């Protein structure tokens, strides 16, 4: 229960920061409208700009901003000694991990809802696959949140934001959000599929196309393994940074 008090505070830090709200919601909405407009006005636009392919890519990209803000809040708490104050309290290590990660889950859910809703305005048809895609989106959101905790544990208040932005770039370029990695091929494809983001985008696209979860088991396994690994790394980094 104590961890939930910390969670509630972190959530307040997010929704009371106008910049956070704008960056967590506005860019995905902008991208969806922008690429959709390009697709509608240019008959030669890549097929990846259709809502069924675009919405999964933009949704996963929006989770990059979760990493940015999770990292920024933790780094700021470390630097301002607020974390030191909490570390002298009866909170346990697990309380801190839960406290700094859980608040971003409802934010991730909101991002999924917003991206899906905008996608539907742009022509995405609502089917079971859209609901099933939550099973792909939530684990990859957790990967990003854990990376955020890792960033906030390792980097300072001034360095955490650029490192978080770097992750957004990686997802954008190597996740295949607006380009088919298989078409690019080569090292980009290899690196892209060595990371979990392209797997998540591909899996969600397959589910949007009407397939069931069993079809995307392989992608889901990669994402879950990355989720566990990123959790382990985040917990280790936090422990290393806050050990007496």
């Amino acid at each position, binding site marked *: 229960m104590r961890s939930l008090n910390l969670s509630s505070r972190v959530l*307040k830090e997010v929704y009371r920061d106008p910049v956070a709200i704008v960056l967590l919601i506005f860019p995905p909405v902008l991208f969806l409208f922008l690429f959709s407009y390009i697709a509608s006005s240019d008959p030669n636009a890549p097929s990846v700009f259709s809502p069924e392919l675009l919405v999964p890519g933009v949704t996963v990209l929006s989770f990059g901003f979760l990493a940015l803000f999770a990292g920024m809040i933790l780094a700021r708490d470390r630097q*301002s000694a607020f974390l*030191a104050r909490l570390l002298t*309290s009866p909170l346990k290590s697990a309380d801190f991990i839960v406290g700094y990660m859980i608040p971003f889950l409802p934010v991730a859910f909101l991002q999924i809802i917003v991206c899906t809703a905008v996608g539907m305005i742009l022509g995405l048809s609502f089917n079971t696959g859209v609901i099933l895609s939550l099973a792909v989106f939530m684990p990859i959101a957790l990967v990003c949140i854990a990376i955020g905790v890792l960033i906030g544990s390792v980097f300072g208040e001034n360095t955490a934001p650029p490192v978080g932005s770097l992750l957004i770039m990686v997802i954008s370029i190597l996740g295949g959000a607006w380009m088919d990695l298989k078409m690019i091929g080569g090292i980009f494809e290899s690196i892209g599929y060595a990371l979990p983001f392209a797997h998540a985008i591909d899996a969600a696209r397959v589910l949007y196309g009407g397939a069931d979860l069993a079809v995307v088991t392989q992608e889901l396994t990669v994402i879950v393994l990355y989720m566990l690994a990123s959790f382990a790394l985040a917990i280790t980094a936090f422990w290393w940074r806050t050990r007496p």
Partner: protein
Amino acid sequence: MYSKDSGMSYAVQTFNLSRKFGNDRIAVDSLSLKVKAGEIFALLGPNGAGKTTTIKMLCCLLKPSGGRAEILGKDVQTEAGKVKQVINVSPQETAVAMNLNLFENLYLVGKIYGLSSRNVRQKSLEMIDLMGLGERKWDKVKKLSGGMLRRLSIAMAMISDPEVLFLDEPTIGLDAKARRSLWKMIESLKGKKTVLLTTHYLEEADYLADRVAIIDQGKLVAIGTPDELKQNMGGIMTITIKTDHLNSTAAEGIKKVYPLSETSTTGLVIKGKDLVFDDVIDLLRKEEVKVQWLAMNEPSLDDVYLKITGGDEADEIA
């Protein structure tokens, strides 16, 4: 449960507590202290003396390199969980959640320490009133002044009703009025809570502390009540004299009797062991010095501190 030693209850004890950073920098060097239950105990020392490092070790934030420490009989390393239940700290930085309001900051800390919702709500409002922040209780703390933030930080440390309260430079950066107001609040804890505070302000230690420990380069160099420390100065006293009629002959005559006398722009300052007021007055009359006003001072904690930590002329006297 307090640690007992010869019938005395100690809330905080350190036994040759040490902390090294790297291979060569010793921040705290074999520090042994005993802080009595219910007393206000001040750690004094210049920048880098090891005060904050000591507090951090006592609050389980930093692992000692050597020695050990106990809070209410619990070892800070092996029983950190139990220690954290009975302490609270106001760090040197204000350490508040900037996007929460005052009430929410206090509520958060209270809940983290396991207070019930009703209790923490009531205590938060009480603390806000105690700190004189009632009118701002719903304001985000990032809108508060430095003094208000400092008061909030101390309130956050007090809301869990800790048996041992650590205040690291509680009044740093505050103006004289805000400092005095905080002193009154800290003074009200005397006898009720054990308070261990660090400060740069000697006047603060003199006003608040039952006992003072002076540490320099990580080592304990003096300990006692402020009066005991002053007495250890060997009776050095100061008489400050304001006069417009001090010629060089008179100044030399006075200096012969009191070698440490100094002239200043407004008159002169006479320093010496066991100064006798009448003798000084007689000398001033003999030298035909017309006194506008004069003030006689016993040694201050400043004198003690300067003597102990570094090269004051008082060394020459004592």
